């Protein structure tokens, strides 16, 4: 009789242990699934229709963002500092992701200076950072459709010598395979942030 009680007690204890283990595992999985640096938007935001061109002269529209995760950064080629630094960080992050066997997001550089950034200038510029980077430019009104929906600010700032710079949002947007904004990385950027969070973000959708 005592032996039977012991067996029952042992069985119950084992079941409890399994239950606790499963709960802990699922809890840890849940914790692991959270990006450490990116801000996940409350609901993915679909982008509106827009018509721009890429660095090859082909149309770049909402549909161009479907079917693959993308990182969108807005800047201009005459920016000597934060724009190339950010593209460099994204290119290095992608290389690290590739080396560790992860899916690699597309990198999209959208020019907010269509006045100076021609298709040819963009082609030279983005090719410097690797073959996996798409440069986008086009008509200002079409550009505004994209930036307004994405919450991207940009404004021309005329300098005392008559030249101009562009003030612009420094955020990197994460666009999911449906072409909707899923998350964002705020500046200052760090290669490790992208490497850490992108597999989590891409696995969560």
């Amino acid at each position, binding site marked *: 009789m005592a032996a039977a009680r012991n067996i029952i007690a042992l069985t119950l204890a084992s079941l409890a242990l399994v239950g606790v283990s499963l709960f802990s595992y699922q809890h840890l999985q849940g914790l692991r699934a959270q990006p450490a640096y990116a801000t996940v938007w409350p609901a993915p935001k679909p982008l509106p229709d827009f018509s721009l061109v890429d660095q090859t002269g082909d149309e770049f529209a909402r549909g161009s963002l479907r079917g693959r995760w993308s990182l969108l950064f807005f*800047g201009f*080629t*005459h*920016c*000597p*500092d*934060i724009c*190339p*630094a950010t593209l*460099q960080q994204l*290119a*290095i992050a992608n290389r690290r992701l590739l080396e560790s066997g992860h899916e690699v997001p597309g990198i999209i550089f959208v020019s907010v200076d269509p006045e100076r950034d021609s298709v*040819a*200038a*963009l*082609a*030279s*510029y983005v*090719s*410097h*950072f*690797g073959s996996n980077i798409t440069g986008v430019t086009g008509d200002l009104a079409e550009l505004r459709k994209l930036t307004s929906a994405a919450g991207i*600010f940009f404004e021309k*700032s005329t*300098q*005392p*010598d008559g030249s101009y*710079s562009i*003030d*612009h*949002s*420094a*955020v990197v947007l994460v666009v999911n395979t449906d072409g909707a904004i899923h998350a964002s990385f*705020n*500046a*200052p950027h760090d290669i490790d942030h992208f490497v850490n969070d992108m597999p989590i973000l891409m696995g969560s959708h």
Partner: protein
Amino acid sequence: MKIYASVCLLATVLLGGCAEDPGPLVSITDVKILAPIPGSGAGAAYFNIENRSDAAITITRIDSPQFEDVQMHETTIEDGISRMRRIQSLRVGPSSSVEFAPGGKHVMLMRPATNVAPGSLVELEIHYDDGLLIVNATMQNRLPTE
């Protein structure tokens, strides 16, 4: 001795003084010059300037024989917005230093005067008050192999 005196005289003229220790009172270190990315037309230079004297100095101008247009700029990010503004002059306080670094103060190198490319030696002439500092560095490609 004659050589030391010449160096000391040169330092006096260029750097504003020569104490017993012939080390300069104003010095430039960590010079990094990045080539313009094709399609952009603007390279960048970064360095650290240290003023070890007991008087403030003001950088008034930077020139380079390799670029026709050289300007000091500063990038700031506030509320997520990146802004770049030209710096007309820059004060370096006594016994202090100022860093030109990515994401902050930088020198824009525009309109190459010669056929400069990654690997070229680029000279920066940093004018301050009545002094002048000349530094050279090899221009690097923007994307490192890490």
